[in-house]
């Protein structure tokens, strides 16, 4: 399988402009550490 990894959650993105797709697509190249994800999670925890 090489570097392929099993994954279960896949977001669907739509767009009305090419720039939107490009910006959303950049999620794949930007590394975000667990601490930041936790920070985001905490902002929205009720």
């Amino acid at each position, binding site marked *: 399988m090489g570097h392929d990894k099993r994954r279960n959650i896949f*977001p669907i993105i739509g767009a009305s402009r090419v720039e939107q797709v490009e910006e959303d697509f950049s999620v794949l190249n930007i590394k*975000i550490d667990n601490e930041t994800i936790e920070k985001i999670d905490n*902002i929205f925890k009720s």
Partner: protein
Amino acid sequence: MELKILGKTGIKSSPLIYGTWYLPNMPSPNEPGKRIVDRESSIRLIKKAYDLGINFFDTADVYRGVYDRENLFNDFSTVGLAEKILGEALNGYERESFVISTKVMGRVGPLPNDQGLNRKHIFNAIDKSLERLKMKYVDFYLYHAPDNYTDPAIASKTMNKLIDDGKILHYGLSNFSNSELKRYIEVSTELGLEGPVIIQDKLNLLEQKNLSTVIRTAEENKMVSMIYSPLAQGILAGRYIKGDESNSRKEYEKNFKGNALFQQNSERIMKLYDLSVELGIPMSVLSLKWVMTRGEIFSRLSGPAE
């Protein structure tokens, strides 16, 4: 680009799926005030997504590319338009290079059985979808919503027949309650049928309810969760402030004055906006990344998935 394995299916997919519920549109030249799909831009956009590495495309028989609530149940002239455009855009690419999901259930015509999960409609609907897509099969065929009139055993056997006939590879459910999802999983097990392998439901930072219900059930059954509205229709992407001259918080809030979801969460959204500015990372990326990491959270809580 690194592809990911879709749950237990073994099929390789891009980590993001391109959705066709909403396509580039423009004012109708014939009907003032009405918007229609910009076919040329839509095709260009889908091809661009493909070129960027997205290989999974989602559609439905009822998707028209624009949302026209007033005519949803009486004008069927544009039913299947998103499927048609998607088929046109991907025509010419190797079928093995992309993955398609489409859906059935919603009303697509005026006749009594032009909707539902009954076998009569599903057999008819899959042929129409394949015709519009110009494809021999779809990878995933989803019930778009529950149908209280069709027995889950009949609906499940119908999907298994389509698998046997080679018209679909797998099936799934969208917008079902947690108990309904569990029922469908149980029925297929009881009958020795191939069960659903995928769900499609809403999840974003502002709407997390499904995380503890259907998405949890899907995870427990090693099913794939396709997530719609991960950016809460742009609210979590901060898209509405782009193009604004001042790009200020004041302007941001002004643009969302009438949006209930924004109003209820404005403070949190502004905190995410501030974090985005601090890190120099778009809000959309932070929001999508959060969604994408939910699977890992489940894995950590329940141990390795495999």
